[in-house]
């Protein structure tokens, strides 16, 4: 079965064959009325059969998980090893380490009450760096909130990210959104919003706009979690992407949980990937802890989607090692043993590090030095971010509209007069003033 040999699955020709096999093998093996006559209903092209058979989630083989290296960082099939140069590989790993230190320190700073909220990326660093390294910087990114590695890889600095978490005067978002709601026009990263799944049909629309640009060489990538995939917007996005032929990569981070809800309570089918072929999307499932596998998958998907204006769905399997957010204690709904298993054996950082060590690109000493530098960068940045004032309170009423309507101008004036009268009751000294 082509479906069972995961390594060749990523090759699109093989995939097309596999898709064909997938559909034919599930046909009931009974005599067909009219010699397999294809029905002429406008809604589906299928043969008639005289035996009744219901289809369910067990009618199909599970979609296999594409892997390039094993848990020890050894390449399984040499043909699948991407040709990434030393500098790129080191940059990828360094970004992962930087991300993990940023997570650790900002998580703790929330615990100390220095920022109001934080969400870590533990266990999913491979998805971020593997995918970001396969994209063009011109590709537009729509993210959910657990994709900070993509921002870092694209060149956003720790300083810029930390400024957002503090909502200080250097935050491009002007302190209006909760921490981790990053965005950067310069890096083609669309600003994150909290409502889940909303970015998905938006990504499809953006891809449609790109498709219409003459000689387009850009695609759109949209990240979302396994929980968000249950939203109606996810269904809208898959269906619109397929019917309107959009160059978009829908990348699902299936990390097993949506806050406390395990995937067994999220869906009953074969994960998110199985929905792809059902809606007409080219689909691949990949080991999200294997950075090289994610890189290959997204690279192939990008080439395909830009060349053909067809959407691709990638389901990257991972495990959410950290708590959902700083407002969550995940030990209330899952065992410590389970978490430890994934931290120890399936760490994307560990696997990638071992791969680099096998190649002679990295060693314990370099690890130590970079680890220290990465940590120091975050600590230094945080100290600076804390000293910066928050934006002028008037930013509260700017950017609601392109031009401030008279009614809002009036409200601005009201607040101004109020603050003149009662300044001591407001934290004015923490904010920039006129």
């Amino acid at each position, binding site marked *: 079965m082509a479906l069972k040999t995961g390594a060749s699955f990523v090759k699109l020709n093989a995939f097309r064959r596999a898709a064909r096999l997938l559909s034919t093998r599930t046909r009931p093996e009974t005599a067909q009325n009219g010699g397999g006559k294809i029905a002429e209903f406008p809604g589906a092209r299928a043969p008639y059969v005289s035996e009744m058979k219901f289809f369910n989630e067990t009618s199909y083989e599970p979609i296999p998980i594409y892997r390039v290296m094993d848990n020890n960082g050894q390449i399984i099939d040499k043909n699948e090893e991407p040709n990434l140069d030393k500098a790129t590989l080191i940059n990828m790993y360094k970004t992962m380490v930087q991300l993990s230190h940023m997570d650790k320190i900002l998580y703790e700073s929330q615990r100390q009450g220095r920022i109001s909220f934080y969400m870590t990326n533990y266990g999913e660093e491979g998805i971020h760096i593997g995918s970001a390294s396969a994209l063009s910087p011109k590709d537009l990114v729509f993210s959910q909130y657990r994709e900070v590695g993509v921002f870092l890889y694209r060149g956003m600095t720790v300083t810029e990210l930390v400024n957002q978490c503090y909502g200080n005067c250097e935050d491009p978002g002007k302190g209006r959104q909760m921490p981790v709601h990053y965005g950067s026009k310069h890096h083609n990263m669309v600003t994150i919003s909290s409502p889940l799944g909303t970015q998905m049909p938006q990504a499809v629309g953006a891809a449609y706009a790109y498709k219409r640009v003459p000689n387009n060489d850009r695609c759109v990538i949209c990240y979302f979690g396994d929980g968000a995939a249950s939203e109606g917007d996810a269904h*809208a996005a898959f269906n619109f992407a397929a019917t309107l032929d959009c160059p978009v990569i829908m990348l699902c981070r299936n990390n097993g949980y949506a806050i406390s809800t395990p995937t067994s309570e999220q869906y009953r089918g074969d994960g998110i990937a199985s929905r792809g072929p059902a809606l007409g999307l080219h689909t691949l499932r990949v080991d999200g802890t294997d950075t090289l596998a994610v890189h290959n998958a997204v690279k192939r998907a990008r080439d395909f989607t830009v060349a053909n204006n067809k959407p691709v769905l990638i389901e990257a399997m991972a495990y959410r090692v950290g708590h959902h957010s700083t407002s969550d204690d995940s030990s209330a709904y899952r065992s410590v043993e389970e978490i430890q298993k994934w931290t120890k054996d399936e760490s994307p950082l560990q696997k990638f590090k071992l791969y680099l060590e096998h190649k002679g690109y990295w060693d314990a000493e370099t690890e130590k030095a970079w680890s220290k530098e990465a940590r120091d960068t975050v600590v230094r940045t945080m100290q600076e971010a804390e000293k910066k004032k928050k934006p002028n309170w008037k930013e509260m009423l700017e950017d609601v509209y392109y031009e401030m309507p008279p009614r809002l101008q009036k409200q601005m004036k009201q607040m101004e007069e109020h603050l003149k009268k009662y300044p001591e009751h407001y934290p004015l000294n923490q904010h920039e003033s006129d």
Partner: protein
Amino acid sequence: MTSLSTKSIVFHKLIRNVNNYAKRMSSHFIYYPDKERPVDGETTKMNMMQAINNAMDITLKNNPTAVLFGEDVAFGGVFRCALGLQEKYGKDRVFNTPLCEQGIAGFGIGLATAGATAIAEIQFADYIFPAFDQIVNEAAKARYRSGGEYDSGALTVRAPCSAVGHGGLYHSQSPEAFFAHVPGLRVVVPRGPIAAKGLLLACIRERDPCVFLEPKILYRSAAEEVPVEDYTLPLGKAQTLRVGAAATLVGWGTQVHVLLEVADMARDKLGVSCDVIDLQSILPWDEETVCNSVKKTGRCLISHEAPLTSGFGAELAATVQEECFLHLEAPIARVTGWDAPFPHVFEPFYLPDKWRCYQALIQLINY
């Protein structure tokens, strides 16, 4: 001009006859064509559907990034507003989407994010609610939350709204008040072809996301001489259609025509004249025009088809009360749909028709 006004009188009579003939279908108003033109130059007779089609035609012609999409727009749309546009501009610019309103709105936001001009059609305003999250949480807040780095300004969502004679619960709603509570959105309702063309072109070009609600009963029943050339009408501005001293009558969409007739009735039967104001923009709305009028007349009647409680009339009334307290000589009157779902066979009893408005005006004047 003379021939035009003769024409409009003939048209007027025709509509009146049609209305009398089909009492249950659309008995609640007479269409008052616009006599003033926003721009000089050639005009042609268009109904509102044609005026909207014309505005979209101009947009697609002049703006190569503009696309028009929604359910069934490819063949011209169920109200024919997109008629002929796919043939003219191609299948990649005027196209059907799957039947999914949240998808349509989200897709439109994405187009706008990537720099294209998006005209999304929701088949009936009654079905805009699945897209409420995308419009309220996403389109309206995109500029604010990104510090101005991204916005959805190039998105216009068009939707046919309001009573049509027999639309029942889900082909009659006027949802403007739901959207009027959303900072960042512009909500616009035209009263006829000239206004529809000018306001729709303004919405499409406006740098804020717009919800453009089209009173569907006017698509065919409203016709007037519409300027052929490209023009816009200002958003956030009301239009004063009649000038008077006895009271201020405020409405939008179809209801403007009901109020114009009420003003005529008041003139003929009571010998008083009223200011009649078409609000046009529900959000942001023209506080100055409304309040200046009420300060002059001392009396205010607000009328809309949507239910009373928390309808947009409440916002108007509260503001007028706050701004014109010393000028008010009677409590502000609100004549609206009842606080019930929009019914099928009871539509003539449900609508705030001219008789209900007239009675409220009499009470207002005699207070």
